């Protein structure tokens, strides 16, 4: 009867020694590929930067592996699995007395933990640690945490980090001691060190709860929860409802907090101050938490001001590490393909083929950014394989260019007209809207699982004839494309049935042949707009898929949902091509970069991430929102990103530098849609507060102060100029604005359901 447990133990061995624990949790993918790669590559940099964080593995080499083995061995021995231990010992070639010199092992892990913090402090820190951690379990725990730290959370492992006992009654004293200290330091340091409050508070509270000190935990919460920044209120509310150890298992917020290190950016001076204080006071408990659960990103230079910190904080796991935003991003646009353009006026189009190239040139300059010259910031044309243009695509491009010559130049003194598409009688609940690029079709996703497509031009929607009828038509005729359509089916509206849950995301393909819809039922469906039938159901997300979007070049699309990963798909593959893992909570919205090489995702963890389609890496993490992000928009030139969240604020980001460059305040409710005008001068935002607001994007991006220091540190100083940038606020008639769209001539279309 011992074989069964032994089996499970050996499983554990395998998983431990592999470091990655393959788990079948949620999407079945751990957040390793993106994160680990980044982490490993960044760790040398962190060493020189002088970070003093806990499990900052100093180059994964033999010593560490051996340590892992030792830990496992120790675990086996402790569990009285002598045989397995013996086998492991033999196979790993460890000496018989591998486990005996515990002291050296423990201290061995000590310097490891405090490696980067400097030589003198290192000793102190390790001695501190050795006093706190039970030496026998220290070695066992450390590697396990390293394993679990960046991996899919294995609940028991994660929670066991809390099992170390401090005196619960002293937590109060520890925390208030630190609070007193931080309040007494110089003003310039206080703002920075105050960042510590929230993560410390949460971890201490959880530790108390985990160790069954419910009443102490409650008192602790009561006493100190009021000190926390107001934007953590949502998290605190979840936290306060959690008072039992049993509840901690399966609580996602908690797991997020445990599995990711809370990242703080602190200047070197402030950090030294803190460290000295903690060492003087022998405040082990706090030091411990800082070592194990926080990642302190130390920078040289002036401490940041309170407003600077507030602008960047608010996410579930603190700010982004600076290295996370260092990768080069090719934000430029791809070169437009050369198309023979009959750009003449309508009356003489389609005739003299020869005259066109000459006429084309002067007109093409008015197209601005899309010139023939390769943008230095653009990715290689072939970096991502893109589908070739079909004849119909070329025709569409020609249409596009014709239209754009008639485009109105918008500006602060020339605002767009707004046309509102109101969904009437949408009692079933309108959940998503999309409009084709040429503004000829509008589609709505509804809570009753249907997708409805309307034609907003006089041209009705028609299905292709049945196969039998298609056999009868003359394939040689010029108007064969007309003939294949079944005139009898012409109608203004087509309803697509197939989903079994509310449709939360919807997206037209650029060529208007397909429509994507993502639903609560966990699937994404591809619909043909020729036959108005479902072509493919893409399964992969097992939980609601909140958003999906086609690439601007078609073929690819991205989706994101409750399972916290975004997936990149191609229409002809039933499995995803890339999985973007790293967000700590639901992915609420997904957007393609105009050059199709990157994907931006917004999440309930209050961060925005930019992913490289080529290799699946996360290349940017933007923090600063104080609520789940529900809207994203790239500027047409690909340089900037705008994001809107439940906090009613729009934030502007410089993708190249990885900086926040603007904050637009004005909305009073969740922002569900953002869109730049075709030339990028105006940013329109639509919100639950029944308004559309127009912002001067030109001015917002022009006023940037991008000196080297700012670019290097990412510490921008935003002036509050929302009021200057706000060009107009437009009320709807009690209709929340779910979607915005600029037509090719820069007329703004807005859509929403009338909600009486």
């Amino acid at each position, binding site marked *: 009867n011992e074989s069964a447990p032994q089996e499970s133990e050996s499983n554990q061995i395998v998983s431990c020694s592999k470091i990655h624990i393959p788990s079948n949790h949620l999407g079945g993918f751990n957040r390793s590929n993106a994160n680990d790669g980044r982490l490993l590559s960044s760790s040398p940099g962190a060493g020189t930067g002088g970070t003093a964080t806990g499990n900052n593995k100093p180059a994964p080499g033999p010593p560490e592996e051996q340590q892992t083995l030792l830990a496992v061995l120790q675990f086996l021995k402790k569990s009285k699995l002598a045989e397995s231990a013996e086998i492991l010992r033999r196979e790993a070639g460890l000496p018989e007395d591998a486990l005996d010199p515990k002291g050296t092992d423990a201290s061995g892990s000590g310097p490891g933990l405090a490696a980067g913090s400097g030589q003198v402090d290192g000793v102190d820190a390790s001695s501190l640690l050795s006093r706190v951690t039970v030496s026998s379990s220290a070695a066992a725990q450390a590697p396990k945490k390293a394993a679990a730290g960046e991996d899919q959370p294995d609940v028991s492992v994660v929670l066991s980090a809390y099992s170390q006992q401090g005196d619960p009654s002293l937590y109060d004293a520890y925390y208030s001691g630190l609070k007193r200290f931080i309040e007494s330091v110089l003003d310039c340091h206080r703002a920075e060190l105050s960042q510590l409050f929230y993560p410390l508070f949460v971890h201490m509270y959880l530790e108390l709860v985990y160790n069954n000190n419910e009443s102490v935990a409650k008192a602790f919460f009561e006493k100190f929860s009021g000190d926390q920044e107001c934007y953590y209120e949502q998290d605190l509310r979840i936290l306060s409802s959690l008072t039992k150890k049993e509840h901690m298992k399966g609580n996602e917020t908690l797991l997020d907090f445990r599995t990711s290190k809370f990242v703080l950016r602190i200047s070197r001076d402030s950090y030294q101050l803190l460290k000295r204080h903690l060492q003087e006071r022998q405040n082990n408990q706090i030091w411990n938490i800082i070592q194990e659960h926080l990642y302190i990103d130390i920078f040289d230079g002036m401490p940041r001001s309170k407003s600077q910190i507030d602008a960047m904080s608010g996410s579930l796991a603190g700010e982004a590490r600076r290295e996370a935003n260092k990768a080069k991003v090719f934000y430029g646009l791809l070169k437009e393909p050369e198309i023979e353009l009959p750009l003449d006026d309508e009356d003489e189009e389609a005739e003299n083929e020869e005259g066109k190239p000459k006429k084309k040139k002067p007109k093409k300059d008015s197209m601005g950014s899309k010139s023939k010259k390769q943008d230095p910031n653009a990715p290689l044309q072939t970096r991502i394989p893109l589908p070739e243009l079909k004849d119909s695509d070329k025709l569409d491009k020609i249409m596009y260019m014709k239209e754009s010559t008639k485009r109105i130049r918008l500006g602060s003194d020339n605002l767009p007209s707004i046309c509102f598409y109101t969904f009437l*009688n949408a009692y079933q609940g309108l959940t998503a809207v999309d409009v084709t690029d040429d503004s000829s079709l509008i589609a709505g996703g509804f809570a009753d699982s249907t997708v409805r497509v309307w034609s907003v031009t006089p041209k009705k929607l028609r299905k292709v004839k049945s196969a039998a009828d298609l056999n009868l038509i003359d394939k040689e005729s010029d108007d064969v494309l007309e003939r294949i359509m079944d005139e009898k089916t012409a109608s203004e509206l087509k309803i697509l049935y197939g989903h079994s849950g509310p449709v939360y995301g919807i997206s037209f393909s650029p060529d208007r042949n397909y429509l994507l819809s993502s639903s609560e039922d966990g699937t994404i469906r591809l619909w043909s707009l020729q036959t108005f039938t479902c072509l493919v159901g893409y399964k992969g997300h097992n939980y609601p898929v909140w958003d999906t979007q086609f690439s601007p070049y078609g073929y690819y699309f991205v989706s994101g949902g409750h399972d916290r990963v975004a997936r990149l798909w191609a229409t002809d593959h039933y499995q995803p091509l890339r999985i973007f893992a790293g967000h700590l909570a639901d992915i609420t919205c997904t957007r393609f970069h105009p050059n199709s090489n990157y994907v931006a995702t917004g999440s309930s963890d209050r961060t925005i991430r930019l992913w490289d389609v080529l290799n699946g890496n996360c290349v940017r993490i933007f923090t600063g929102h104080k609520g789940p992000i529900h809207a994203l928009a790239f500027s047409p030139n690909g340089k900037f990103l705008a994001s809107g969240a439940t906090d009613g604020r729009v934030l502007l980001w410089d993708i190249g530098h990885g900086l926040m460059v603007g904050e637009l305040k004005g909305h009073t409710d969740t922002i569900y849609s953002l869109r730049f005008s075709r030339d990028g001068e105006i940013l329109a935002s639509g919100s639950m507060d029944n308004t559309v607001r127009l912002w001067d994007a030109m001015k917002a991006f022009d006023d940037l102060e991008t000196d080297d220091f700012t670019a290097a540190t990412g510490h921008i100083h935003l002036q509050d100029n929302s009021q200057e940038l706000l060009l107009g606020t437009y009320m709807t008639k009690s209709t929340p604005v779910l979607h915005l769209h600029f037509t090719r001539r820069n007329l703004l279309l807005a859509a929403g359901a009338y909600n009486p």
Partner: protein
Amino acid sequence: MAADREERRFAEVSRDSVKLMAESAGLELGDEVAALLAEDVCYRLREAAQSSAQFMRHAKRKKLTVDDFNKALRWSNVEAICGYGAQDAMLFRSVKEGELFFVEDRDINLIELALATNIPKGCAETMVRANVAYLDGKGNVGPQGTVPAAVQSLSDDLLKYYQQITRAILGEDPHLMKVALQDLQSNSKIAALLPYFVYVISGVKSVSHDLEQLNRLLHMVKSLVQNPYLYLGSYVRSLVSSVMYCILEPLAASINPLNDHWTLRDYAALLLSHIFWTHGDLVSGLYRQILLSLQKVLSDPVRPLCSHYGAVVGLHALGWKAVERVLFPHLPAYWANLQAVLDDYSVSNAQVKADGHKVYGAILVAVERLLKMKALSLPQPAEGCSIPLPAMYSELYSFFGDSLAVRFSTEQSFGGFSPCTPSHFRETRKEPLGHVSNPDTTRKMPQLTANLNITLRPQDQSLARSSMQRSRASSSRSGQRSIGLSRDVFPKARFTSPHSGPPTFSFVIGGRQMGRRCQGRRPFQTIFVPTPPPPVVLPRVYTHKLPVIGRVCKPLRRWTRSHYSLHLPL
């Protein structure tokens, strides 16, 4: 546990509830187990509520639905809760004996439902409408009128129906009109047409010369108001303004003395009170607005007498409280004008004088009802602010003289008061007169009266009973027995507060809180309710301003013609 319950900021499931539920499942739970379970249940509930909020956000709504919650339950592998998906608010009922609260789960007669003829249809086609909201960043939307632009396009059937109905009602054939009105009153499928009908009705202003048309339009209002399937929503306002027009405006038709516009005004006033009692809660502040506009007309001496007449009958129709609040304080000032008209015996004034007599009659009737109702509701302690009946009577007597006394001659005493011979009152008059002469000061300021209700049940009950008996006696004498009876039943059923225990402290804000609807909701009015109060109707949830088809549960309140008419049931 009980001690720290106060500081928790969540709704909690109490230990007792858990025990009760366990019992209903046939289990006995110990205190400790129940407490643990209760806490766990609370946590799970909160967790589910938090995840359900996510569904709400993604559905781009502000209102959490049962559906959202069910989806959240599915995440945590819990069975969904069925049967609560309806849009309507749930009615919570309580059982007095067991301190139990529950949602009423009525049996539904499926046969009836299946065979129902009034299946709503044809109005809920989801569609997209485009309208240019702003041109070049500047609004070009016209000012929003009282009648909002219809947001539904009509099917051909509806359009035909609309044409037929309007043609029939405004046409010549009285029989056709009758049929049309009848259908308008009972058709369940015309919600989509409501804005159009309201618009037609608002045309009263253009036909003020044609009494017949006005009458027909008012009948149309009545039919719409009585249709149980229509949800009038904010259209009530528009309807009211049309009706008020008929009541108050010096209609072109009234130039000719042969035209009986008086009846029209009476009818419109009747309709006004009907709209108000049945749909008044759809628009907040409607009562106040109506009162204000009536008051404005009444206090405007330039207005012709027929407008004044309208104001008086309007007030009368709105109930004696309205009369007491608006007409009575205004009477001394108004009386002088009226007297001047009545005293002018010149030939040229004959017509005006006739009108004056009409107004005089209307006032008399209104005042008489005021006195009667006041007498009936006399033993009402909460109304600390109103003028005592004797003073009121004596003042009114000074205006009307014996014509008032004659009205009461059939009953020698009412409300326990001695016969109303003027001489009797004259003695008591001096003191209250000073009071009366400046009644506004007493009435306008809301008075805060602290009431220490030390609940001594038996005494309280007996007090109430005695007052009721008194009222019953009086009402039987005055021949209004039926009303008196319904009043007797009501307070017992609704206002006996089930809780007993520590003395409760309640504040009475008097003065402003008149009108029947307010009183129905006043928790402290334990003893007597003067007018037939509304039945137990919970405030509606105003989620749908658009006409919604299928709102079947509209409370139909009885309103007897005689109750509000000018003919006294003597």
